């Protein structure tokens, strides 16, 4: 399937792309367009103005995708808190990782193109997921 989002990928779009690849579409093709009007007809837009898979009612796009596709894995919702705070920074959640993840993503966008950012952030989100999966199982921080 094809998925469209804006270029200059930051935390929310990188996290959405990871979520799409892991849970919605194992072989996604991402296209980057500046204008919501230039989204290809066969592509699903996300994190773009006017798109269904976007910010809604105070949620970031990552949270919207979790809701729309009924992904109720608590670990994903834990990641959603980090993404929400890194993206919106409205202190709705206590996510101490958020400022760090935000800076990492902003730095990456300075040194590589969007395809590369998605490539690099794949393992980053895999790691965050695994960390929080173990934390949830243990009920405390894993080693």
């Amino acid at each position, binding site marked *: 399937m094809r998925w469209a989002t804006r270029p200059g990928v930051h935390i929310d779009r990188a996290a959405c792309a990871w979520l799409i690849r892991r849970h919605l579409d194992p072989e996604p093709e991402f296209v980057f367009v500046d204008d919501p009007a230039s989204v290809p007809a066969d592509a699903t837009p996300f994190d773009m103005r006017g798109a269904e898979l976007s910010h809604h009612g105070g949620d970031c796009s990552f949270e919207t995708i979790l809701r729309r596709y009924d992904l109720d894995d608590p670990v994903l919702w834990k990641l959603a808190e980090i993404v929400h705070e890194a993206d919106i920074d*409205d202190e709705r959640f206590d996510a101490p990782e958020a400022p760090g993840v935000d800076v990492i993503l902003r730095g990456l966008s300075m040194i590589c193109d969007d395809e590369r950012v998605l490539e690099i952030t794949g393992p980053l989100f895999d790691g965050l997921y695994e960390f929080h999966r173990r934390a949830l199982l243990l009920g405390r921080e894993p080693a």
Partner: protein
Amino acid sequence: MSTAGQWVLLAYRIPRQPSTLRITVWRKLDRLGVARLGDGLVALPADARTREQIDWIAEEIGEMGGSSTVWLAAAGSAAQERAIAAEMRAARAAEYRAVLEQAEAAARARPGERSRAWKRLQAELRRIGRRDYFPPAEREAAQRAVRTLAGTGTGAGAGEVAR
């Protein structure tokens, strides 16, 4: 962030009722540290982050039944831009002064209280910093006063020391 640059402008209209919607938008714009250019017209120096934040607020205004347009613009003269930047700088300066005063008061408090004030003011500094596009001289003094609280807090827990 430089002056004589590009700004992102949001022109918006929100239904009068319910007033909670207007207040929600006001709070979000305040949090971003916008310059208020007029009734329903705000501006921020344009960069990838501010443009995106303004875009999302525009989207939200649409969802609540209002209307808005987002513009990229440059001031008609450097003097106008300087005046707007000076207003924004003064607004941040007042916020830094408030932090400074609270830090000075906390420095005289008991260690436990002092350590709590330190964490709270550190978070406040971070919040102000994110909307500080034209840093005023007051920033440095406020940062120093908050740092001083950290050095004297004997009630700090392990997590705090790790920072």
